[in-house]
């Protein structure tokens, strides 16, 4: 991504202003995480260095302050990911309800290992830690939403919907 392309839309810039306004004067760094979410949504699902530098400029902080934060939080991707990221929870309560089997099934079905992306750039499998849906296990996060009570059939349907471009992510 060339530097020149990194520019929020007019609408996003208004949102940035509104977000900064939530915090006291001079404390605009507090807006960093919300703005990185916005940036990740807008610039292809991950945070490339020029994107992070751009955000640093907007908030008048040093680029290193942005890198530190972007690498600390698991929701920020510092490498490209597929269009559909299957974040399957594998912590205790989900494991008790068969998350291992769901992960294995997705691996077989998509031919990728955890952490990998399919060659067509469509799917990434990203095992996740407890997402607060333990009573509705097994589950995964897909975009902004949770898919709960997963079964192999449900996984099939989800993959089909994604392939058909009918999966809502936002």
């Amino acid at each position, binding site marked *: 991504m060339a530097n020149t392309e990194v520019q929020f839309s007019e609408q996003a810039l208004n949102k940035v202003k509104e977000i900064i306004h*939530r915090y*006291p004067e001079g*404390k605009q*760094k*507090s*807006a*960093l*995480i*919300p703005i*990185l*979410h916005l940036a990740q949504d807008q610039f292809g699902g991950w945070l490339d260095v020029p994107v992070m530098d751009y955000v640093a400029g907007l*908030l008048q*902080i040093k680029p290193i*302050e942005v890198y*530190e*934060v972007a690498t*600390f*939080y*698991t*929701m*920020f991707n510092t490498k490209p990911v597929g269009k559909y990221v299957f974040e399957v929870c*594998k*912590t*205790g*309560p989900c*494991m*008790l*309800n068969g998350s291992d089997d769901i992960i294995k099934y997705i691996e077989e079905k998509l031919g990728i290992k955890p952490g990998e992306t399919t060659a067509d750039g469509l799917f990434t499998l990203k095992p996740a*830690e*407890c*997402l*607060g*849906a*333990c*009573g*509705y*296990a097994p589950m995964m*996060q897909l*975009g*902004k*939403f949770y898919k709960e009570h997963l079964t192999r059939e449900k996984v099939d349907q989800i993959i089909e919907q994604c392939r058909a471009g009918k999966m809502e992510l936002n």
Partner: protein
Amino acid sequence: MKLLLENAHIEGIRYYDAYRKHGGYRSVEKALKMTPDEIVDEVKKSGLRGRGGAGFPTGLKWSFLAKPEGVPRHLVCNADESEPGTFKDRYLMEFLPHLLIEGLIVSSFALGSNATYIYIRGEYAWIPDILERAIQEAKNNGFLGKNILGTGFDLEIYVHRGAGAYICGEETALIESLEGKRGNPRIKPPFPAVQGVWMRPTVVNNVETLAAIVPIINMGGEAYGNIGVGKSTGTKLISACGNLNKPGVYEIPFDLSVEDFIYSDEWCGGIPNGKRLKACIPGGSSVPIVPANLLTKTAKGETRYMNYESLSDGGFQTGTMLGSGGFIVLDEDQCVVKHTMTLAHFYMHESCGQCSPCREGTGWMWRILKNIEYGKGKMEDIDLLWDVQRRIEGNTICPLGDAAAWPVAAAIRHFRDEFEWHVLNPDEAQV
């Protein structure tokens, strides 16, 4: 008796009109006619204990809030909810957003916060929309914004999304994160009540704690305090999961027995396929696991109840804790070693890395557990594991270290034979 979820099933309760029609925002009307100190007094009288897990008396915490001249104070709602097994705050925010907003308005007035923040875990990505809509509705109806109900009190509530870090539920890490930094916990004291966000006096309270302020003001602190048993007053949200017929979020009375909670059809409806209960972690992944016989009865043979005192009866030797109310049930076919291994992985992943006992120890524990689980362990490894967990406990900046150590200690304490079985039967363990 339900104090929080009473109206949860009413059509449209997520929106202002239905919420207001069913008595919503009465506590704001009442509280804004009181003085802030009178509100703090009611909360003290209620005996309410923090629902985030530590159970610290809320009224007392509020009375510790420093009030230096000319320095703004803030209320921050902890909606980071990431403790494995815990999903009660999500339920409250998703289905009763106005209850939280109402509690936040009263609490902000009591504490003198004109800008209050809800720090919500980033993965709950659809919930900020629900909360922001509720905030807007409250504002449109004069309960938020400038000069609320003509009292001169101004309040804005902002939703701040995190980005995936369990440690940001720890209040000082949360504050760092809210300031736009990595979630590294600070050394306490100073407590946030003295030096919190932007070095200003700050109260951090859990979602459920702040929602409970509404019934406390409506019925009066004393009446609330009369509900429950001993120092467990009011009601508690429990999120039940694992091997249960009816997992989900329940509002329980504190005099409910653990056995009824698991088996009664009114609650979790027993264990699927008629299997037997093996073990339970009743308060979120960081509290000790207990075997079935110590779960429904204390070591003295008395019935165990779903409250702070009863669950911790016997200390860590034979008891456990109510914690955050994340109730995880394991049936007879589950492997305690494997379950503990997934939790160890969780803590390793979530350690912020500031303290070496936690950073290194969580990794050690996971690797040893993995070896044992997959049939590559030796008998000495069980003792080594015990040793590693013991060296973490009490030697770290924040309690994440303890939280990682306790489940391992309890698993070995109560299920040592299962660890030994894995060592003795490597071939079977591998499958």
